[in-house]
């Protein structure tokens, strides 16, 4: 890009703003990381800012030391990958047909689908449904109910609309059916949005545990790691219950609270740079002339 002098000043201003944003986003995370590694005596005096005081690996040892938890980490990773792939598949096969304006029944289907994004009857009917389907205490209650998000589907469809119709027409003239067009033309051009949705689904599954909390009671081996962490945390900090019952189990509450954040963040930080290479501009559109 041709740059003029005035933009240099603009560049600097933008840098400064970004540095400021980095500061306010990074500092709290560093504080959390430091707290997760500090000893209780410094934490209770609130003396930990950005650097750990009195190295204390108890929280991590608790989680990584127990075989049960390590198993859960692997299991949750597999679950996340599986769910993400399934969800992407479902999202694509739902979004693509809805990009055909002359699809008979398409409009009605569209409205019906969007309705489900807003109208729901709460947790009890969902529990009853899963109970009737026999999916409670199995892995399916974690995989199936959430495998297609309407919000994400709309984003996907919107992105499909951004691909020039001329490409589809050309493919049709060449005799390609819809599936062929999808696989040969639309998907390769949709890498950024696929990567985005993969990220959304993956983060949602890795960090979500409210379904497991309600649907899994006996099958600990199916607990996502966040549910384990939640239980440990609740055990050591639930004030209301402590008042009612007269106890709370001794814990690493503060360090553990902070450590749970690390377990939520680090995996995504590892995965994200790998996904970043799909967020590439220009290669896609520029290569195709209408």
């Amino acid at each position: 890009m041709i740059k003029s002098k005035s933009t240099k000043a603009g560049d600097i201003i933008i840098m400064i703003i970004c540095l400021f944003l980095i500061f306010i986003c990074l500092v709290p995370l560093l504080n959390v990381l430091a707290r997760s590694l500090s000893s209780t005596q410094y934490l209770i005096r609130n003396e930990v800012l950005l650097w750990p005081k009195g190295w204390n690996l108890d929280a991590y040892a608790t989680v990584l030391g127990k075989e049960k938890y390590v198993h859960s980490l692997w299991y949750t990773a597999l679950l996340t990958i599986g769910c993400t792939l399934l969800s992407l598949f479902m999202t694509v096969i739902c979004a693509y047909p809805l990009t055909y304006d002359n699809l008979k029944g398409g409009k009605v289907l569209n409205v019906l689908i969007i309705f489900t994004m807003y109208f729901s009857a709460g947790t009890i009917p969902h529990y009853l449904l899963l109970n009737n389907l026999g999916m409670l205490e199995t892995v399916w209650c974690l995989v199936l109910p959430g495998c297609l998000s309407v919000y994400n589907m709309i984003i996907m469809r919107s992105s499909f609309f951004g691909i020039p119709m001329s490409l589809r027409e050309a493919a049709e003239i060449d005799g390609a059916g819809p599936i062929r067009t999808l696989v040969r033309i639309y998907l390769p051009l949709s890498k950024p949005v696929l990567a985005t949705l993969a990220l959304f689904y993956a983060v949602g599954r890795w960090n979500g545990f409210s379904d497991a909390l309600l649907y899994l009671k006996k099958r600990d081996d199916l607990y996502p790691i966040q549910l384990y962490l939640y239980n440990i945390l609740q055990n050591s900090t639930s004030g209301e219950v402590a008042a009612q019952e007269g106890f709370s189990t001794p814990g690493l509450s503060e360090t553990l609270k902070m450590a749970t954040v690390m377990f939520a963040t680090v995996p995504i930080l590892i995965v994200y740079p790998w996904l970043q290479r799909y967020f590439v501009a220009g290669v896609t559109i520029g290569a195709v002339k209408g």
Partner: protein
Amino acid sequence: MSQVKQPSLSREIRTGKTNWKNYMQRYGTLYLLLILPIIFFALFRYTPMAYILMAFKKNNIIKPPWLVDWAKNNGFEWFIKAFNDKLFIRALGNTIKLNLLDLVCGFPMPIIMALLLNELAFKRFKKFTQTVLYLPHFLSWIIVSSLALRLLADNDGLINILYKRMSGNPEAVIPFLSEENWWVGSYIFLGIWKEAGWGTIIYLAALTSISPELYEAAAVDGAGRFRRIWHVTLPGLRPTIVVLLIMRLGSILGSEFDRPLALSNSLVSNVSTVISIYVYQKGIKGGQFSLSTAVGLFQNFVGVLFLFGANKLAKHFGERGIV
């Protein structure tokens, strides 16, 4: 965004009637693709939806709603009860206020940030910045609340400690979390801080679809940074912005639960109690399932009205809506 019409079947234009054989030949596989999603929605979304009927029936969860008696006042007992409850009206008012502020202040933020990131010259720095900006999204609201207290508390918060020292007055205080209006500001700010970075992802993905030739053309025409953004980048983002805005408006009366629960305290409950908290207190802990379903139905109904309204408006301006 191309506005080219769909290729139409020529025979269709002529006779106005669908040739089913041709149609299914060309588009049959699309229905094949839709089978699984349709089963999914029918099973996991519509079957439970039947329970929305609870909103019009007497409070009972051990029988399916179609077997339960109708509530008083032709089934509208719970709606009437809610609207007669001054706590509900207060919660409704708070929800509207906070959601509007979130919309006005919070919705543009990811866009602005995405534009900023897009303008960054150094690729490595851009990637680093992006990743860092996502980080607050991973903190749970409980942790954010304790961080916020450490920073903003009246007496022990870092900022107020500095403020006292600088002004020399030990009684000086900025009531970030203890005074109602300040609290609202803190609430909105923390929401933006937590989610704006994550919200840029989708805009950044959309930016990749803007042809670099357009930028080159603009630069050749002598357009400076702002004009480039105004004439090339923003229009390129317009479809995404419109879609996200429409969907956002659909949740205009929706309320998060974790955020107000974690950030509120007893001094500001007058402005912090939103519908979700009201439903939690009255509906869930108070065992009023029909009432909570009725309130939820009301929220969704109003939201969907806004959704269709915004959709129509978008179409009026030439954008493709979502319905």
